[in-house]
Structure formats: structure tokens, C-alpha cells
């Protein structure tokens, strides 16, 4: 079953190169995403055993991130149909160049395959290969628009992430050096954790944290993120923010898993806490006065990655909070980037100041835009409110009042910054040149579905999700 999960998107990617028509290719994309999601649900229920002598397995952590990825990909695949239609309409009018649709679909599917591998793999060497492969699969996606700006964003993304990931490879080798004679599989490392060389392990942890942290968008290594997120096509931005960043976060969690087993969990938590707070602060500074609404969302991703790191860094209940936050963030950010794509298509600008009266132009997307902002800023009754509260409680419970105060202050600043921009975009009269338009089902329903789920998670936490979240937190030594 795990093999099918990996091979399905790979085969579809190959197929999408061969298929002649755009229509068939879009059906293939959505069909593959739906089948992948079905398989993920089956894996979630059946819990199949490990594969390839334990290199691939679905433990609670992997299962959680696999679920998020597959769900978000399904929504994005459906949204992409609407996006690609719009793009081909523009191309027919000769307005934008853009890359080939076959390449776009193939890269999306390859990205799904590699990210699935990230969630399932239990070997640090393979994990590195998979994470780097996701970088390579997404680089052409960011450059899909074929403009000078997207070229610049792609170059920064490729170079910064490749350098980061190269440092993670050095960290992986350090990890092997700290446990001489053994392999790099997770179970082997966990089994011999007590015998790890502490100095080499700490060096390994730092390099892996910086390396995968670059990919995850933790400040100060986040500089590629706003450019890539704002210049990529909106479905790709949604995937980058909701799935790719989580994949890198999972890689960091795997290292922390070994650190906990080696009784160096405290060392790992302190590092994560520091990076998390820095990310929150950087996000707060750049969210104020931000005039580009896609960049605004990108900095909000930096903020949320910071919250995840803070949650893990606090430990205890905070671990659960961080994992729950990862689910909520993916749902909310998927919703927001898709809606941002709709606004961008209607207004033709990314400048927040030029977007006014959004609900008059786009009745559905306008409302979704407001809902998304409430969800992403942690307003009750959305799920983010609960998870952010759990993390705050963890800070108070461990007696870190300074951390709690800084965390609350920065969240408040970001709330004000985001809400100010959102309100201005929603209120007022729309510019004369922009006509109200009928919205396609493809571009609104996936976003609305994600929004509904983000809302539901704030009202009831389903027992099956709760169980996996608790099991995953237990793997990281939290509760």
C-alpha cells in the first residue's frame, strides 16, 4: 500500500508528459490526487507495516504529515484546473507567456511523490535525498510564469535551499559520525541513542536544523520564502506554504526524535525555541507596512513556522499544540493562497492598496478572504486559536513567562498588521476598471472546503485525529 502511494504520482507524472490534450491532463491531475487521498485514508485506517526492510514506514508523525499533504494536494489539484483554464485563456489572448502545462502538471505530481517519500521514509540519508528532490521539483513550478520576477525568485529559491540542504547533508554525515558502525536508519539510531557521541551529535543537530530550517523558512534563513511564495502561481504558493514547509518541519522533527532518545532533547528544544522566536519577530516586522498581499501571506507562513518551532521548543503540551497548529496552518494557508490567486486574477495586481471592495467584485472569494484571515490570525472559533492557546499554556506551565509574553505580544502585532490590510481590501468601493465577475466552481469550492475544515477543527477535534496527534507528540517526548 505504501509502495502504491509512492508509485501512483510517479507514474502519473510520467503519463502527463505523454498525454496530448490539456483536458485529459487536468483530469489526470485531479484523478491522481483523489486516488492518492483515497490511499492515504486507507493507510490511515489499515496502518500497513514497514517496507524495504524498514526504510519506509507510516508511523504517527509520518501519517499526520502524509494526511495534511494529501488533503491539501487534492484541494490544490482541483483549484489548478480553474487556474490552468484562466492561464490558457490569457495565453490565447497573447497576454502572458507562461510555461507548458504538461511540465506544470508533471512537476506538481513529482512534488507529490517526493513529499510522500519525505513523510514515509525512516532513513536519514533517504530523507535528505527526498527533501532535496522536492526542491528540484518545485523550482520549475515557481518559474511557471516565465517573467523576470519569477526568474529572480526561482534563482534565489534554488540557490538558498540547495546550499541549506547541502549543510543538512553535512549534518547527516555528522550524525553518521556520531554513531560509528551503524546505519542512518531511524530505528537503528533510536536503538543506539544512548551510545551516540554527544559533541558530534550536537554538531549534527545544529547543521540539520540550519539546513532543513532554511527549507522550512525559519528566520534568519527565510529570505527565499517571500519571493518564492509571491512570484509562484497561486496553487503552487498554497502547496509550498501548506505542504513543502511542513515536509522540512518533519525532517527537523525526525532529528529531534533522535535527540530526545539520546537525552539531548533539551538542547534541541532550546535551539528550536530561539529560532522560533526570531522567526516570529522577523515576521511581525515585515508584516507591518507590507504592501504586497501575497508577500503578506508569505510572512505569515514565516510566523507560523516560528509558532511550530516555539511549540516544539517548549515541549510537554506544546508539542501537541505545534503538531495541531501544523494541520490548522496548512488548511488556513491553502485557503488564503487560493483566494489570493482569485483576487489577483480579478484585479491584476498584488498591491493591497489597489484592491478595494473585494466582496463586490468576487462575492465568494471576498468572504473566503475574510474567513481565511480570521483563521490564520488565530481568531476563535477557528482551530488555530486552540493550537496557539495550547502553546501559550505550555509556556506558562513550564514557567517561561518571558517567552509567553513575547509570544503573545508578537502574535498581537501580527494580528493587527494582517487585519488592517485585509479590512482595507474588503471595504470601500471597487476601482471602476474592475468588473464584477462570475466565479468558477473550481477556484472557489476547494478553498471553501479547506476553510470549512479549519473551522470544524476549532469546534470539534475528531477522535481519530486526536489519537494520531497524541501518538506523534509521544514520539517526540511530549504529551
Amino acid at each position: 500500500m505504501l509502495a502504491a502511494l509512492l508509485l501512483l504520482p510517479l507514474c502519473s507524472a510520467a503519463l502527463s508528459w505523454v498525454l496530448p490534450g490539456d483536458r485529459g491532463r487536468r483530469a489526470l491531475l485531479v484523478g491522481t490526487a483523489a486516488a492518492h487521498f483515497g490511499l492515504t485514508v486507507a493507510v490511515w485506517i489499515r496502518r500497513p507495516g514497514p517496507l524495504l526492510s524498514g526504510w519506509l514506514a507510516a508511523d504517527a508523525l509520518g501519517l499526520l504529515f502524509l494526511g495534511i499533504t494529501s488533503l491539501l494536494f487534492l484541494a490544490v489539484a482541483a483549484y489548478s484546473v480553474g487556474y490552468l483554464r484562466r492561464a490558457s485563456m490569457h495565453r490565447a489572448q497573447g497576454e502572458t507567456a507562461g510555461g507548458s502545462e504538461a511540465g506544470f502538471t508533471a512537476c506538481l505530481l513529482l512534488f507529490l511523490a517526493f513529499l510522500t517519500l519525505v513523510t514515509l521514509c525512516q532513513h536519514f540519508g533517504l530523507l535528505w535525498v527526498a527533501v532535496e528532490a522536492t526542491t528540484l521539483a518545485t523550482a520549475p513550478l515557481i518559474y511557471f510564469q516565465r517573467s523576470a520576477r519569477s526568474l529572480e525568485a526561482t534563482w534565489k529559491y534554488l540557490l538558498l535551499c540547495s546550499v541549506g540542504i547541502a549543510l543538512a547533508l553535512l549534518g547527516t554525515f555528522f550524525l553518521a559520525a556520531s554513531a560509528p558502525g551503524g546505519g542512518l536508519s531511524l530505528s537503528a539510531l533510536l536503538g543506539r541513542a544512548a551510545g551516540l557521541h554527544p559533541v558530534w551529535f550536537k554538531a549534527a543537530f545544529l547543521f540539520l536544523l540550519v539546513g532543513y530550517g532554511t527549507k522550512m523558512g525559519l528566520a534568519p534563513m527565510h529570505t527565499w520564502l517571500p519571493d518564492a511564495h509571491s512570484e509562484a502561481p497561486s496553487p503552487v504558493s498554497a502547496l509550498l506554504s501548506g505542504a513543502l514547509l511542513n515536509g522540512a518541519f518533519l525532517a527537523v522533527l525526525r532529528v529531534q526524535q533522535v535527540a530526545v532518545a539520546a537525552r539531548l532533547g533539551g538542547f534541541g528544544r532550546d535551539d528550536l525555541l530561539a529560532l522560533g522566536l526570531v522567526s516570529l519577530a522577523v515576521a511581525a516586522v515585515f508584516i507591518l507596512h507590507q504592501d504586497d498581499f501575497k508577500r503578506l501571506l508569505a510572512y505569515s507562513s514565516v510566523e507560523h513556522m516560528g509558532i511550530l518551532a516555539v511549540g516544539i521548543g517548549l515541549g510537554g503540551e506544546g508539542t501537541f499544540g505545534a503538531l495541531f497548529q501544523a494541520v490548522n496552518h496548512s488548511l488556513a494557508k491553502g485557503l488564503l493562497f487560493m483566494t489570493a490567486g482569485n483576487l489577483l486574477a480579478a484585479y491584476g495586481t498584488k498591491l493591497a492598496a489597489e484592491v478595494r471592495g473585494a466582496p463586490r467584485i468576487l462575492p465568494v472569494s471576498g468572504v473566503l478572504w475574510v474567513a481565511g484571515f480570521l483563521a490564520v490570525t488565530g481568531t476563535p472559533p477557528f482551530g488555530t486559536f486552540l493550537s496557539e492557546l495550547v502553546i501559550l499554556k505550555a509556556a506558562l506551565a513550564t514557567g517561561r513567562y518571558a517567552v509567553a509574553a513575547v509570544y503573545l505580544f508578537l502574535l498581537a502585532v501580527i494580528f493587527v498588521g494582517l487585519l488592517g490590510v485585509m479590512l482595507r481590501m474588503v471595504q470601500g468601493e471597487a476601482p471602476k476598471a474592475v468588473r464584477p465577475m462570475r466565479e468558477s466552481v473550481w477556484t472557489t469550492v476547494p478553498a471553501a472546503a479547506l476553510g470549512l475544515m479549519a473551522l470544524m477543527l476549532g469546534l470539534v477535534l475528531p477522535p481519530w485525529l486526536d489519537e494520531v496527534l497524541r501518538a506523534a507528540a509521544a514520539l517526540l517526548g511530549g504529551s
Partner: protein
Amino acid sequence: MTFWTDACLLLLVLTGLVLLGTGRLSFGIRVVAVQGWVLGLLPLLHEGGTPGTPAFLLAALALTVKGVIFPWLLTRALRDANVRHEVDPVVGLSASLIIGIAVLVPLLAFGPHLLPPFPLPSRFWVPAAFFLVFTGLFLISARRQALTQVLGYLVLENGVYTFGALLMSQQPWLVELGILLDVLVAVLIMGVIIFHISREFDHIDTEHLTHLRDWRRAGQDDLPSSEGKGR
């Protein structure tokens, strides 16, 4: 064997120094090719005795990718992408060399004490690997041209690979193969992007890649937005 191992490591350090001091891109590419050959041989020296067939195959593969394919790709990019042949340094060449030596001396002095918890074929293995990692990072940050940055990325990757060669024998060959493949594809994509940059901007100085920023200056000329219909 120790003599040959030390000689190889010395050669690696020297190529790093030469790269810091060179002003010609085509020469830099050739130096990186030499680095690739040495790196291909390194795992075989480390094995001791007679290496098995997989070790030979992997060494041959690494040598081909790092010593032949990469230099060929970069040379092609240099020719086709209408690139100036100077490296265009941010930090001057002699200053780069002095910084390199300033890093190398403490590495050689203290490096032999940074021993991993297993026997090493040479005490200079770890310092040599770290020096290449440093050189790579330095070239990426202190040179303007996109092509030089790729060169720096390759040197960084070579440094990591040098350290990894110590442990490769313990790792499954599948992982090593995956690493080589990933780096190969990364360089391929970087090559394509460089080609597009040269076509789009008529040059590949990354200093001009500054349109994406957070706070716009008044009156700054702006490129059209990439998504939707443009402004």
C-alpha cells in the same frame, strides 16, 4: 596508502585556494574538474585492501559526474549564455586568498583534534573537508556572477562529499546514488535558469536580481507583475 591519501587531501586544499584566487571563470571550472577527479579516487584510497565492485562503480560514477559532466555543463553555459569571463568579485581576489589562508591555518592547527569517534585514514581528512565547505560558502557569497555561485555550490558539495567519503562504506550505496543524482539535477536546473537569466537580463550578475523586495523606493522602476494580467 597514507602518503597517497595525504597527497590527495593536499591537492583538494590547494584547489580550494586556487579557486579563491582565480579571476578567470574557465580556469575555475577546470580546477573544479580536477577536484572532481580527486574526489572520485578518495573513497577507493580509504577502503584499503581491494575495494569491491560496488565501490569501484560508485567511484567511477562520482568521477564521471563531478569530473566530466559538471565541467562540461558549466563550460557550455559559459559559452552559450553570453557570460563575461571574469568572476566579478565582491571581495577582491587577493583579499579572498588572505581570508582563505586565515581560515586554513587554524583549521590545520586545531582540525586534527576534531576527530570523529572512529579511526581515520589521515588526520588531515576532516580539516580538508571543512576547508572546501568554507571555500564553497565563501565563493557563493563573495562573487556576483550566477555561474560562480554554481561553482561555489559545487565546491561546497565537494567538501560535504569529502567528509562523507569517510562514512560511505557504512552507508547503503542507494543513498549515495540518490545524493549524486540530486546534485546532478540541481546543477542541470541551475544551468537552465542561468541560460534564462542571461536571455532576460543580458547578463548574469545576481546584483541586478533585486526587484523583489519588501519596501519599494519611490519612483523605482518596477517589472510587471508575473501573475494575472500584469499591472
